[in-house]
């Protein structure tokens, strides 16, 4: 994605917005997923208490994370797993490369793991001659297309079936022009079955890691994590260190929330609990920090570590739905990604907390009750203070600071602004106005507060 590396969210959104029917389709599809979430949530009278409980459990986890990590490690070792620790993405990738090269393995199958996207593992291994095949259907599609996933749960939500048909025709030999999802899925099934049966190493993500038992849980609908892990000699599970939950019974809270929030299903098809390696096989767990311990220390942003990656905040977000996941130029897109990314690189991701209307819909749906929109607002302040304001905003805000500093100019500018809205909307609704790309222009009031107040005073006299 080097071509997009220098473009910010607004510029990338503008590219996505060139194809209006596609934007509408993207918008409607995600809203439909959000609506399914609502139906599922409304079926449980205890839903709000469930969210509150999940949030409190995660609060406890974050307040005691170091002990839980040690407890998890000790129990995982007792179970026969080998535990590795990676301070950053580079170390994570090196650990995995070493595990593979020591065993002479140069091909690996991988199930969904946003962490490995965050660490750019595939590229790292490719440069060292290791071929990685993503086995989640959506991830395989974007991998073949040479793109990153655009959504953490629905990786190729931005692609039309005809495009997927073309990709499969080119890479997997499906018939030209074939775009039936059933036939395309069957094509992928045959192709990936061969992959599962021939790979000696499988990498998976981790949804929940249980301190009390040392087991970890992976949720999929396709069964790809299990197919990979059970057939391989070595199973590597990469986990962000915030994936810890204290006790097994807490799964009874989180598994009830996760998929209902994600897609409206009551649970994924498979919720697999890995405790001990199979006879004669190895399980390696890589616990990754990569900025998480720093985020933990940021009082205003530490709650973002509660995230269970359900994707609900993306599905509901009016900006995400209309700008597409790739416009966020980071592994985890959408509202939560816009909180996580600036922690890793405030300068590079300075634009993301501004890619929001602050409407709060994300916070309303979040199953662990993260105050997402408040955090986005707080990041804006941190970023402005640090001097990393995105360029478009800087120009507009400088103008604003100048006007606000001068009451006479403020009045004139306000009047001018209102006249422009009313009589020449094209003048503000075009690309030349840097604010427009970032927000909907409000309807111009007939009179400003200043004018109203003056008039009222007149009338009172």
């Amino acid at each position, binding site marked *: 994605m080097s071509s997009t590396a220098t473009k910010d969210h607004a510029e990338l959104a503008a590219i996505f917005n060139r194809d209006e029917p596609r934007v509408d389709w993207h918008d409607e599809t995600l809203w*439909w997923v959000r609506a399914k979430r609502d139906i599922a949530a409304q079926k449980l*009278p205890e839903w709000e*208490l469930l969210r509150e*409980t999940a949030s*409190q*459990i995660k*609060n*406890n986890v*974050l*307040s*005691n*994370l*170091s002990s839980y990590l040690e407890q998890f490690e000790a129990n995982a070792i007792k179970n026969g797993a080998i535990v590795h*620790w*990676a*301070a950053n993405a580079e170390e994570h990738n090196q650990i995995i490369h070493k595990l593979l090269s020591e065993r002479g393995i140069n091909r690996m199958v991988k199930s969904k793991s946003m962490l490995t996207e965050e660490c750019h593992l595939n590229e790292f291994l490719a440069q060292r001659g290791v071929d990685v095949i993503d086995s989640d*259907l*959506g991830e395989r599609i974007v991998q073949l297309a040479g793109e990153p996933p655009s959504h953490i749960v629905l990786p*190729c939500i931005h692609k039309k*079936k005809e495009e*997927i048909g073309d990709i499969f025709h080119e890479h997997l030999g499906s018939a030209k022009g074939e775009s039936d*999802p059933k036939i395309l*899925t069957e094509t992928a*099934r045959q192709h*990936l079955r061969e992959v*599962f*049966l021939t790979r000696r190493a499988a990498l998976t993500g981790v949804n929940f890691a249980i301190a009390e038992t040392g087991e970890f849980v992976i949720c999929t*609908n*396709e*069964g790809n994590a*299990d*197919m990979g892990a*059970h*057939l391989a000699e070595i199973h590597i599970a990469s986990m962000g*260190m915030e994936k810890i939950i204290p006790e097994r*019974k807490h*799964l009874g*809270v989180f*598994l*009830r929330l996760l998929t209902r929030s994600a897609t409206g*299903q*009551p*649970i*994924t*098809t*498979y*919720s*697999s*609990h890995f*405790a*001990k*390696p*199979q006879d004669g096989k190895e399980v390696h767990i890589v*616990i990754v*920090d990569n900025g998480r*311990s*720093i985020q*933990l220390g940021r*009082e205003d942003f*530490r709650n973002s570590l509660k995230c269970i990656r359900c994707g609900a905040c993306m599905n509901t977000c009016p900006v995400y739905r209309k700008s597409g996941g790739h416009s966020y130029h980071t592994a985890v897109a959408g509202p939560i990604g816009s909180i996580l990314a600036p922690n890793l690189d405030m300068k590079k991701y300075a634009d993301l907390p501004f890619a929001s209307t602050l409407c709060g819909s994300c916070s309303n749906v979040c199953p662990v009750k993260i105050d997402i929109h408040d955090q986005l607002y707080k990041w804006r302040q941190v970023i402005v203070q640090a001097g990393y304001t995105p360029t478009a905003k800087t120009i507009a805000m400088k103008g604003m600071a100048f006007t606000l500093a001068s009451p006479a100019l403020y009045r004139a500018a306000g009047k001018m602004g209102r006249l422009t809205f009313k009589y020449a909307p094209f003048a503000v609704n075009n690309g030349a106005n840097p604010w427009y790309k970032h927000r909907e222009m409000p309807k111009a009031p007939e009179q400003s507060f200043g004018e109203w107040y003056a008039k009222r005073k007149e009338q009172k006299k």
Partner: protein
Amino acid sequence: MSSRNKILAAVKANQFSYAELPDLKMLNTLTDTGDNLVERYTAVGTAGGSFVYEVADYDAIKAILQKEFKPGVKIISGVPELDEYTNVEDVKHELSHSFADVELCILPSNLGVAENGALWLTEQQMTVRVLPFIAQHLAIVINKDNLVPTMVQAYQTIGDAKYGYGAFISGPSKTADIEQSLVIGAHGPRSLSVFILP
């Protein structure tokens, strides 16, 4: 300092003041404990793409399977009462990959969840971990009394049981990754039949 110790030290330094774990009692009392579990299991399981049969006995299961599966296909059974098929105990030492041509795998479960259609199986019921995933079709047999309303009771039932591996399975393998159209039969079984015994 190793990365492990560095990470743990950083986490310790940045952890905020201790927050208690919430009490689950209140939540658990609000959680459904209802009846009609077979009916509800059947409705949710069917919606999730499973074929759910309430059967009188093992003979009824045999009759359904004979109708659904042609003779001659490879069928492996982990249910002792369904003994006309290859017994999983007899093939458990074979390489996992050798099960790639299994048409149907039949396994028992001792725990099913009405709210989401999920059935709990550990390695003890699977015998070979890959079996319920690699088979083209999966059938699971459960007693009616082993159904519980929600995941809360499910984890109460599991308690602190020791297992090497366990999974909740709630339907056939599926995906909606292409334009959100649901397709049954992603990488795992193309169908799940659930037989509920009295």
